[in-house]
Each structure stands twice: as C-alpha cells, then as structure tokens.
C-alpha cells in the first residue's frame, strides 16, 4: 500500500503548486479515466495467470487501430463505426494474442522482457505492413488514408466521423461526460472479477500460483496461459479504440507505442504488483497516474520555471515505478527460492 500513498502525496504537492482549479482537474480526470482505464484493465488477467505485466498489449492496441483503419476506409461513422471497429479488431487481436502467447510460453520466467521486445518487434512488422504494403498489396478504397504516392498510410488519420461518438452515446444531450465509456469499462471490470470465479478463471489462478502444481492437477498450463494473453490482447484492442474515439485523430505510427508503458506504470502506481492486481488497483492507479499527468507540467513551470521538467519528471516516474516494482518482485522471488533451498537442505 506504500506506493499509492507516496503518489497521493506527490500528486497533492504537485496539485498545490500547479495552481489548477479543482473542477478543471476533476473534469479532465473523468475524461482520462474513461479513455485509459480499459487499457489498464487489460493487464489484470495475465498478472493473475502468473505471466507478469503484459507489455504485449501494444500489439492489442495495434489490432484496435486496424479496426479503426477498416471503418475509416469504408467511411462508417458514429456508434455503428465504433461497434464495427471493435468487432473487426477481435479476429486480429485473437490471432495476435495467440502468437504472443506461443512466444511467451517458450520464454517462461522471462515473460516481461520478452513481451516488451515482442512489442518492438511487432512495431517493425506493423510499419512494414502499413508503410510499405498498404495501398500496394493491401487495397485501400479510401485514397484519403494513403500518402500522396498511393503507398503507405498517412501519419495521422482523421477519425472525425467517430470522434466522441461513444462518449456522447445515449447521454450526450443530457450531460457533457463520457457516461457510456465509463459504464462499458465498469461492466468489463465486473466481468473480469466474475471471470475468476469460473472454471477457466480458477485454472488461471492455479497456474499463476504455481505452474508445476497446476500441471500435476491436470491443468493444461500452456493453453491456460494462451487464453489469458488472448483475452488481454482483445481488451487492449477495445481499450485503444475507446481511447482514440475520444481523441478523434489517430497517429498511425506512434499512438500504440507508449500504451504498454503507461498502462503498466498506472497499474503499479495503484499498488498492484507483478503477481497481484485487481480492478481496485487499476482504478486507483489510473486516477493517480493521470493526476500526475495533469499537474506535473504546470507544477514544473511554477517550481523550476520550465514545463519541460515536469514532463520529464512524469516520464521518469513511469519508468522508475516499473523499475522499482520489478526490482522488489525479483528480490522477493529470490528470497523465496533461497528459503526453499534452505528448507530442503534442512530436511535432508
């Protein structure tokens, strides 16, 4: 519980110096929660399954963006567009998740670094497809999406036809808040919570606690781990769609890159660890991390005379918090194995 408390203090100090109005921060916060929480939530299932923090959600975000390319190509707008994008992203996310899971199953014990490198690797493939092949091998009927040369997607793609469609769905005329995305993510979090009470969910828990014991109990460990990553990847794809419909523009080659880093940092700031995460940590962490996002540039400006310092501080916090949590986890794990070793020696 120490991490969230430290961050509450940092955020409080930052808020005090930023000089921002309370309602401004709260309104901003509401939007940020609505668009980021789903991405953070997509990390929970792999953590429980013992695969650590899935930096591979970057690949899920790519699947979400593919869904958005499809609706932008066919000019489907509004809530229909978002629904189509979500549905269209599912087959991609399932296939990608399956491939990620296969690789991670061959790198047991090193899932986190592997999933991170996988993200970089997939980014190369993504660029190969959408810079070199798009328009040439992969047909796009909407030429506005392509570069003037007719090959490669533009760097930014306008999503004006679905901009805030989900945010304003049903309740748009009544309140100026993204009601439905919040409801949606709440339902997903509830479902994740329920999911762990099902048979598959229980198996995931068992695999997360001890792979070998799970194996002995007759659980197909590799298959369970695959399922966890596939679900995580699909949720990340949807999360990216919710995120981008709020922004209204898609930076084709950069939007997905930081998804893993920021989501993981948010979850850890909420008090989660490499082995334990629930919806509460996701919610608290997203709130605190984005509070830091809002207050640190103005606080840096006021305190140091340079908003850039606040920006760098925020990046430092994201990396630092991940680094420290991974370190603490590794130390704990090491201690556990040493204790076990000592125990076996004693028994002998």
């Amino acid at each position, binding site marked *: 519980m120490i991490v969230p408390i430290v961050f509450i203090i940092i955020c409080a100090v930052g808020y005090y110096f930023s000089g921002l109005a309370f309602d401004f921060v709260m309104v901003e916060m509401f939007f940020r929660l609505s668009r980021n929480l789903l991405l953070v939530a997509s990390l929970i299932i792999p953590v429980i399954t013992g695969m650590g923090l899935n930096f591979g959600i970057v690949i899920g975000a790519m699947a979400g963006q593919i869904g958005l390319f499809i609706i932008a190509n066919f000019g489907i707008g509004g809530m229909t567009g978002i629904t189509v994008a979500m549905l269209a992203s599912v087959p991609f996310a399932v296939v990608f998740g399956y491939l990620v899971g296969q690789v991670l199953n061959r790198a047991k014990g090193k899932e986190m670094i592997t999933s991170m490198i996988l993200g970089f*690797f997939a980014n190369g493939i993504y*660029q190969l497809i959408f810079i070199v092949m798009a328009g040439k091998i992969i047909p796009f009927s909407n030429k506005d999406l392509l570069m003037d040369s007719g090959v490669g997607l533009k760097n930014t793609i306008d999503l004006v036809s679905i901009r805030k469609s989900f945010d304003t769905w049903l309740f748009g005329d009544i309140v100026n808040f993204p009601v439905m995305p919040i409801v949606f993510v709440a339902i997903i979090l509830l479902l994740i919570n329920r999911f762990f009470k099902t048979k598959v969910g229980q198996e995931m828990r068992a695999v997360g606690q001890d792979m070998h014991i799970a194996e002995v109990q007759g659980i197909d460990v590799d298959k369970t781990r695959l399922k966890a990553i596939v679900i995580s990847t699909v949720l990340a794809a949807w999360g990216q769609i919710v995120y981008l419909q709020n922004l209204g523009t898609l930076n084709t080659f950069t939007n997905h890159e930081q998804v893993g880093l920021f989501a993981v940092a948010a979850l850890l700031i909420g008090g989660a660890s490499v082995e334990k995460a629930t919806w509460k940590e996701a919610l608290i962490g997203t709130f605190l991390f984005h509070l830091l996002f809002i207050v640190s540039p103005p606080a840096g400006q006021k305190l140091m005379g340079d908003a850039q310092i606040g920006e760098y501080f925020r990046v430092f916090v994201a990396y630092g918090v991940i680094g420290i949590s991974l370190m603490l986890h590794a130390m704990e794990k090491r201690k556990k194995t040493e204790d076990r070793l000592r125990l076996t020696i004693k028994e002998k």
Partner: protein
Amino acid sequence: MDKIKAIYNKIGFPRFIITLLLFLFIGIAFFLDLSLASMFTDILKRFGMNAILVLAMVPTVQSGSGINMNLALGVILGLIGCLVSMELGLAGWTGFGVALAIAIPLAALAGYLYGLMLNRVKGQEMTVGNYFGYSVVSLMCIFWLLAPFKNPQLVWAMGGTGLRTTLTMDDSFGKVLDNFLSFEIMGVTIPTGLLLFFALCALIVYVFSNTKTGLAMRVSGSGEKFAISSGLNVDRYRILGIVISTVLAATAIIVYSQSFGFLQLYMAPLYVSMPAAASILIGGANLRKASIAHVIIGTLLFQGLLTVSLPVINIISEGSMAEIIRIVISNGIILYALTRKEAV
C-alpha cells in the same frame, strides 16, 4: 547430410540468416552498380563506432548476469565526460583524454553500485536492468536541463541554460580517432585510429579474462553452484563484470560520439542496449556465452547489413524500409535468444 547439419548447428541460426542476407544485399548492390568502396568505408567506420558498445556485453555475460540491458548508465557517464571536456573548451587528444579520464572513474563507481543492486535480483537482470536504465535516462533529462554548464556552444541560445539536444563536436575532439593515421586504399578509407582503439579495448578485455581474476569471473559465470563449491565469491565477480561493462559503455559512447561528430543527449541513450545486444547475439553469443570473436563477427554482420541495405533499399523500395529492417532484425534476434531452451 549430417555433416552439413553439424556445420549449420555450429554456425547457428542468427549468424546463418544474417550472413545470407548480407551477401544477398552485397550481391544486389553489385548488380545495381553501387559504389562498393564507399560502402566498405561506411562499414569499417560503423564497425569502429559500435564495436566497443558490443564489447561491453561480454563481461556481464561471462560473469553470469546475462546481456547488459543497462548500457545507458555507462553511456550517460561517458556523455558527462565529453560535456565536461567540451565545457572546458578542450580539443583534440587532450579533449578526448580528459573525457575518458572523467568518465571512467564515474562509470566504475556507478557500475559498482548497480552491481550491488543486480546481485539482489539474480535471474531477472535483463528486465530490471532495462527499466532501471530507462529511469536513469529520463532522470538525466532533468539533469541536462538544469546542469550548470555555461559554455554558449553547449547550452540553448535562448535563456542561456539547459543543454542542447545535439551538440556538434567539430570544435572539440570530433573525429580525433577517425583521422589518426587514416589512409585510403582502393577508394576505401581505413579509420586506423578508430580500429586500433577498439583493438586495444578488445585486447584489454581478452588479456583480463585470461588472468587469474578473469578466469575466476568466467567460472562464477558458468555455474553459480560450481563456483561456490570452488570457493569463489560469485557476487564479487558479478559486480566486477558489471563494472567493466559500464566502463566500456562509457568509453564506447565517447568513441562513438567523436566519430559521429555529435553528442546526443536527452532520450537518445534510451535504446542503446538493443542494437548492441542484437549484434553480439548475431555474432553467435547466447545469454550464457560470449567472446571477443562474437563481438567482431556480430558487429561486422549487423552493421554491414544496415550499411548495405540502406542504399540498396532506397533504389528498389521505400527509404523507411531500411529502418524497418533494423527494427525487425535486432528485436527478432533478441527474441530468438530469449526463447531458446538453453537460455536460463
């Protein structure tokens, strides 16, 4: 057939595929009538620029803490060495020497402290080191903005504080090694000084790993239990490996920058470990075994491929393809190493 298979196994998949690609690209380059001389000039130069960075991977692998994903730590201290030397307005060999003299002790100290930390996270060095490196890089971004450097060539013209993102080294010690004894043969420029300096570093690492201490370090890297039963203090040798690696990384960035002609600050050191890791793995190393031969082969192959593929691809496809190839190959090779069974 078995013989071919045995040879293939000895070469290993990464070396095999990259060599194949390299020869393919050289063939196309020859076919397209591109100047091979300027290509070999580039390959030699880029080999000299990057080889020490790759060499920095050897001591950590040998001492048992795997690929050093935190080269950024040494790199940053090397940059500080360069900056101090440039702030003082030093040029030529003096500038280069002072940069090294400042960077090396700092790197040794930082490497020692980092080694203490890594000994507590055995088995997770790569993941922890990677994020530790990222945090150091972003923390140092704040330092670059606030650091008390005053030389107008280093700081932003406006406001007079905060270091620039890229600093030109023309007036300090840029190209000092590259130009030393360099000569031209059949249109290929040989950066003698650059290559000699790498040879010197490689020799030091080689000689050291064959001394009694170096041997003990390699033994403790090959198996912790065996080393303990032989009475070796494993933790101490792991720290030693990390110290040497960090010092080499600091030296490497000074050499790299003087050859490149620019000092790159802020987020530039972030991904420095990845290409170096890919290079040594391409050279035939794995997470448990690495030698100087792996460094030389790997750097030549990887840098060779990058250098040759760029002009070739510019003609037959999009320019950005070269960058894409770099991303796919370097990360693909690291993934390959991570998913191998023998990698522990």
